[in-house]
């Protein structure tokens, strides 16, 4: 089912937590709500689930306006950040709960539980109680309880946040396959940009309750709509240098870069992979000193100082340089992003107004 937020606002007392939020999600999409802690992702999801009232605006599932439909009749499935497994029921009973409530008969109930248990490889756990499971197993059970019926959409609130790094990467892949297999619209909340990039068909970036950009992961990465998105997406973060362009040259403290743009105060943004480090002097290169290097195995992050600026570069794994060693930088200025200086515009593109 398609899902549509139309100018949705949520206030708790005087504080606006979600502000004029509009988003149209197509049927079958995997959309990730991405944003820093406290930006209103959970609140948005809870409004969709009916666990929080909408202060103003409308939410649609398919063509139905659901603002006033009670939670139990919205036919959505949600995976809670805390998993929210019923502690007094066995795993099998937990998974069967949505079916039991819908008065599905016992035989079919058991069959469907067995089927999802097999799909998620939790068959041996069915007779246990939630407290006897590990975090990763609980997470699977929570997923199983969501997919045991065919809801109109899945809502997931940071379901992987409590798993260790390895399990998280593994579950990430499984989630993606599962969604592909089921083809059900999914809204997934996270503050982890790597999760967003890998899972989403489209990412909605939020900041302080406002939508910043809604696009494919690749477009978010390559064409960030504003400074906030540019900085938030990508690891290590994009280099941002404040300065101004005068007569075709970008000027900032000790940096001078020829740029073919009209005069303005701008922030220039360059991804670490577009900064190339060389230990030998190059023509037209910017001199810098090495602050520290971090070997990642397949590549090296080089933290550099150029005057007062800190710049991060990606270098090959065999790159070696001592601390404080002098190096030269070449910037791929054709890949640079320009943002109005120190002033982040909110994303209100024409094509997004639903």
């Amino acid at each position, binding site marked *: 089912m398609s899902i549509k937020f139309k100018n949705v606002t949520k206030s708790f007392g005087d504080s606006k937590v979600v502000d004029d939020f509009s988003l149209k999600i197509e049927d079958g999409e995997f959309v990730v709500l991405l944003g820093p802690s406290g930006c209103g992702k959970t609140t948005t999801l809870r409004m969709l689930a009916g*666990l929080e009232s909408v202060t103003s605006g409308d939410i649609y599932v398919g063509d139905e306006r659901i603002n006033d439909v009670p939670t139990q009749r919205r036919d959505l499935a949600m995976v809670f950040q805390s998993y*929210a497994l019923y502690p007094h029921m066995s795993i099998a009973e937990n998974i069967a709960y949505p079916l039991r409530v*819908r008065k599905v008969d016992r035989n079919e109930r058991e069959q469907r539980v067995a089927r999802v248990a097999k799909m998620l490889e939790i068959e041996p756990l069915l007779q246990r109680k939630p407290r*006897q499971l590990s975090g990763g197993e609980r997470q699977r059970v929570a997923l199983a309880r969501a997919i045991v019926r065919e809801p109109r959409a899945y809502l997931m609130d940071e379901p992987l946040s409590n798993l260790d790094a390895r399990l998280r990467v593994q579950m990430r892949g499984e989630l993606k396959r599962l969604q592909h297999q089921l083809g059900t619209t999914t809204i997934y909340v996270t503050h982890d940009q790597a999760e967003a990039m890998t899972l989403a068909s489209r990412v909605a970036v939020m900041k302080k309750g406002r939508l910043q950009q809604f696009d494919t992961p690749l477009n978010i990465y390559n064409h960030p709509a504003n400074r906030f998105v540019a900085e938030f997406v990508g690891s290590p973060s994009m280099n941002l240098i404040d300065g101004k362009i005068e007569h075709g040259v970008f000027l900032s403290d000790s940096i001078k870069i020829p740029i073919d743009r009209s005069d303005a105060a701008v922030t220039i943004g360059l991804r670490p992979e577009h900064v190339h480090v060389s230990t030998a002097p190059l023509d037209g290169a910017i001199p810098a000193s090495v602050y520290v290097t971090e070997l990642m195995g397949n590549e090296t992050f080089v933290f550099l100082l150029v005057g007062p600026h800190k710049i991060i570069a990606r270098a090959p794994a065999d790159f070696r340089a001592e601390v404080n060693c002098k190096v030269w930088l070449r910037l791929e200025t054709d890949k640079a992003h320009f943002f109005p200086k120190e002033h982040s515009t909110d994303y209100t593109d024409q094509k997004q107004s639903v």
Partner: protein
Amino acid sequence: MKRTRIFRTGWLVLALVAALAPVYWMLTISLKTEVDQFAIPPKWFSFTPTLQHYTDAFVTRSFGQYLLTSAIVAVVSTFFALLIGTLAAYALTRFRLPWNLDHKLSLWILSTRMFPAIVTAVPLFLMMRDLRLLNTKLALIIVYTAFNLPFVVWMMRGFFAEVPRDLEEAALVDGDSRLGALVRVVLPLVSPGLAATAVFCLIVSWNEFLFALVLTQTDAAMTLPVGIAGRVTQYEIKWGVMSAAGVVAMMPILVFALAMQRYLVRGLSLGAVKG
């Protein structure tokens, strides 16, 4: 180290003796002949036991009836207090009422237990008289339900507050109704608390004396405590009969509390939230 242990054990023994001595005395009196009861020096252990007081109380006199009345009144009033109080407590913990009423109401409810019971005894007597409910079990059931309600609300509020909201919300999203979520998810999790509350209500109703004395005078409606006290008359005090009835009155509570002990230990809701 050792000294404190002896000290502690000593206190425990003292407390135990203080608590159990009257019970032991009552038990022996109920089994002694009237002559033995007043023997000086008192016969602590060596006397010939007799069941005459028990037959006197439950066969000759109508203590069996009082027992039944007590049981009916205690069980029924406990049931209603739990039913109403649990729902009220749930609403008070889960729903936000305008003007902060959810907090204020809780305090008002508790305040009804702050004045001495005797203050309400006379108005209650007059009301029950006008309703023609004097000397009926219904009067006691109504009064005990009302009397236990604030307690149930306050106990259950605490237990409900400990149940993570996520669980109910998950139940709602899974398609259950509010009531369904309460019955299938929340109540099982608070069942130890519910059991503890029930035990307390039963004990209070079972032991209640003042309202029962004011509201009932006939054999048909009299509860056990009133019946027992009634053996103190101007002319004689039936120590044996009173003790026998007292021993019997004590039994159900004792058995019940022991049976419930398992539930009174909490810990069921562990593992609900990941951690």
